[in-house]
């Protein structure tokens, strides 16, 4: 058998996603897939390949991770990631990150450079500085789009599992299709 790869950018995508939102995301998926294909053809290990591809996805603001992360109810950023190697069952995970550019790489460092599996919040941030991974001010991750979506979610007083428009009762179709408009950035 040969190599195989699969990647995702989030579920819950409404059928009403307008083309101007769909096309850049499809392009981004194609771009990330090509990176993975090239890496596997060059005999990179699956562990390195999945980290490489997820880093690329984290750096693309269209998806809910890294640069495109959605906001908490306080308008802040809290990112999380994990990675696992099937051969050794070794794994690493991080949560509550506010400044780390690529959470998935910090998760891998937890796996490789600590006796633990999971570091979170202040401890994870401190570990990031010890390991010298790239960090930026939290504002780097906050985009206008995500501020708008948080406001929508607050208005509708709901936690959005995606980027749909809040469900208003005046238009029947929207109340029936929970993913009425907007694009998906499911958690």
């Amino acid at each position, binding site marked *: 058998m040969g190599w195989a790869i699969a990647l995702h950018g989030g579920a819950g995508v409404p059928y009403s996603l307008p083309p101007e939102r769909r096309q850049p995301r499809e392009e981004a998926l194609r771009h990330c897939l090509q990176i993975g294909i090239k890496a*596997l053809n060059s005999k990179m290990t699956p562990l390195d390949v999945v980290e490489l591809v997820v880093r690329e996805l984290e750096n693309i603001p269209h998806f809910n991770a890294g640069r495109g992360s959605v906001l908490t109810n306080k308008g802040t950023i809290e990112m999380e990631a994990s990675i696992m190697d099937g051969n050794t069952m070794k794994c690493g995970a991080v949560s509550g990150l506010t400044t780390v550019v690529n959470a998935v790489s910090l998760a891998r460092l937890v796996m490789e450079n600590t006796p633990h599996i999971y570091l979170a919040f202040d401890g994870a941030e401190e570990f990031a500085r010890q390991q010298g991974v790239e960090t930026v001010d939290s504002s780097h991750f906050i985009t206008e789009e995500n501020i708008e979506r948080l406001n929508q979610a607050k208005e509708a007083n709901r936690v959005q599992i995606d980027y749909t428009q809040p469900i208003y009762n005046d238009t029947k179709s929207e109340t029936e299709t929970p993913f009425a408009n907007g694009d998906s950035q499911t958690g």
Partner: protein
Amino acid sequence: TVGCVAVDSNGNLASATSTGGLVNKMVGRIGDTSVIGAGTYANELCAVSATGVGEVIIRGTVARDVAALMEFKGLSLKEAANIVIHERTPKGTVGLVAVSAAGDIAMPYNTPGMFRASATEDGYSEVAIWSE
């Protein structure tokens, strides 16, 4: 949420997932993505990365369940992934991508759509959002 699973021509498997979480989530809320066995899992049979409502994925130990169905019931990757997505989790909440040591790919979801892409060494590749 974003995720990637990969297997090389020797059957070595790995999985990685990353997310900002849910819009308007409470500060301090942890979702499935960083919970091994829920949003991310890999062993010698398969590698899985899930996305959707984190609370549902944690409750259902989604990624581990796919591997467990293969391990203990001898199901194929596709069968195992479809059971977890279409029979064991509420509609409209979860999707996943997975590969097996044999190079099979599964990308089921029970939401209206899922941003996904896949490829194999023999030249097959796919980029999709909704079903046909």
